[in-house]
């Protein structure tokens, strides 16, 4: 998977309080660990924001029960999107 590629996926977020401070910290940290450019939106047609920017992720104020859309471009795009979807499915690795 060292090809330069692009990937897209969506995931339904059920975390109790939505994309709040701690989930946003976890999400942007994970996004930054990937080399690919990653964007996030609350609708399939955008508007898209930089998933590595906590300022912009928090500004979305995505509440609970929102579908999050990811798209990535560049090296490891597939893995980046898969990782982020898994994070959301696991409630951001938080137990509250």
């Amino acid at each position, binding site marked *: 998977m060292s090809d330069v590629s692009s990937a897209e996926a969506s995931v339904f977020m059920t975390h109790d309080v*939505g994309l709040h*401070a*701690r989930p946003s910290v976890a999400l942007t940290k994970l996004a930054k660990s990937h080399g690919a450019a990653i964007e996030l939106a609350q609708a399939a047609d955008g508007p898209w924001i930089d998933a590595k920017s*906590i*300022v912009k992720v*928090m*500004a979305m*104020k995505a509440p609970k029960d929102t579908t999050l859309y990811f798209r990535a471009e560049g090296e490891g795009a597939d893995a980046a999107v898969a990782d982020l979807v898994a994070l959301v499915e696991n409630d951001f690795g938080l137990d509250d």
Partner: protein
Amino acid sequence: MASEVRYSGQPASPGLAIGVVVVSDRIAAMARDVGSPDEEIAALKAAVASAAAAIGDLITRVEDTNPEGAAILEFQFAMLEDDALIEPAIARIANGSAADVAFAEVMDEMAADYEASGDDYFAARASDLRDLKERVVRALSGDDEDVLELPDNGVLIADDLTPSAFLSIQWRNGQAIALSTGSPTAHVAILARARDIPMAVGLGPIKAADGETAILDGEAGTLTLDPDAQTARRSRDRLAEQSRQSAADANQLAEPAITADGEPVEVHINIAGPAELDEIDPTICDGVGLVRTEFLFSNRDGLPDEDEQAAAYERILIWAKGKPVTIRTLDAGGDKPIAGYTLDGEGNPFLGLRGIRLSLARHAVFETQLRALVRAAPVGSLRIMVPMVSIPDEMTTVNRLVDGLVSDEGSRPAVGMMVEVPSAALTLERFTTDFVSIGSNDLTQYVMAASRDSSDVAALQDAADPAVLKLIAMTVDAAKRMGIPVSLCGDAAADPRVLPALLATGLRSISVVPSAVGRVKRIIRSWSAAQFRTEA
């Protein structure tokens, strides 16, 4: 020649101070030279980096003991690391703004945007943004200190003062506070009285400059700027008299509080946290009649866990050396919001979800506190006090929760209630309670239908009103019939005007701020039932 200007408001904390004006809104922006746009952008980036480093250090220090707090700091840290945070400020600087002004504006707008989200969790994070703003603005002015330093005789002038801002200042005697808005019964006024810092509120818009001479009269509720020679001399005379009086009160500290007709009165102290006890000698009081636990929960990130709470409670019990310590469970809501805990936007918060109502609605937080209290109990003589009780069911529930936490009956701390809602004062016999403590501030507010945080109805906030005194007398009588201890822990007990009337109801136990102990003992020692009847 200087011409004297006088502002009249309400007294909020007694005492007189003559000093120099410090206008709080200017402190952050004080003494900063504005450079070229390039220099301002570089300065902002450096300030953000230094704020991030400071928060990084803080995270390392607290992550083991306070993971909740560390998680919130991680959010602040991530915000500071994100270049997108300063992009809009950089655009404003390029258009000619100063770095601190541009950053403060952008952060205020962002905080307002979070607050407007209609989502409690996002709204509560607005306080993080303001924290960040203040931290960065402080770093820009080259002031890394976390506390605002007032000169020894500084008279702080501000629109309003939050309890956390008050607590971040290292207060010294001789300083004073003048607020344009606010109310004598707001929380910050209670803190000012406890620290013996004269304060006047509701003064209206104040036109003052740093360094001007100011006289703050906490008894009349007035602020005088640029006083003329005669006013200044009169005030200095009164100040001298005041310090003679407090020396006389200090002599009363160690004396027992016995009325002129020989009846002993218990005098306890009200405190807002263990830190206050460092300067107090436990022999001056009969115990701690009220520990406000809100301060463990506010002015911080996240809620305190059981270990942290138990440690704080144990520290107070150790200080008391076996004397009774009455710890009130979290009394948030009303004018004491806690981010992420209390409700935002209640139409009438004093009549809303506060005190025990909120505790029972936020069960996990309440149980953690009860567990910490029960755990600390063996260290001394601990009593648990429940605020804002309105119906017997609430006490039944709390008693059941405490029963579930104690292993044997012998280790069960006494569980009592505050009487501050008229329903409890009117029908105390219905309640299952080991003791009662009258909260005269809230009781007065509810009996007189006069909000504690409104300066317009401050005159109605009178604990000496016959209606309030009648309910207090009823409560004292009912408690005696029930064979349970009764005390009073509101400001009325420290008020020289009200205390004699309280003693006349038969009340023989009070709890006051530590700075008032000498004064109330002096009043008690000169009081007798016969004398009071003659004068009344």
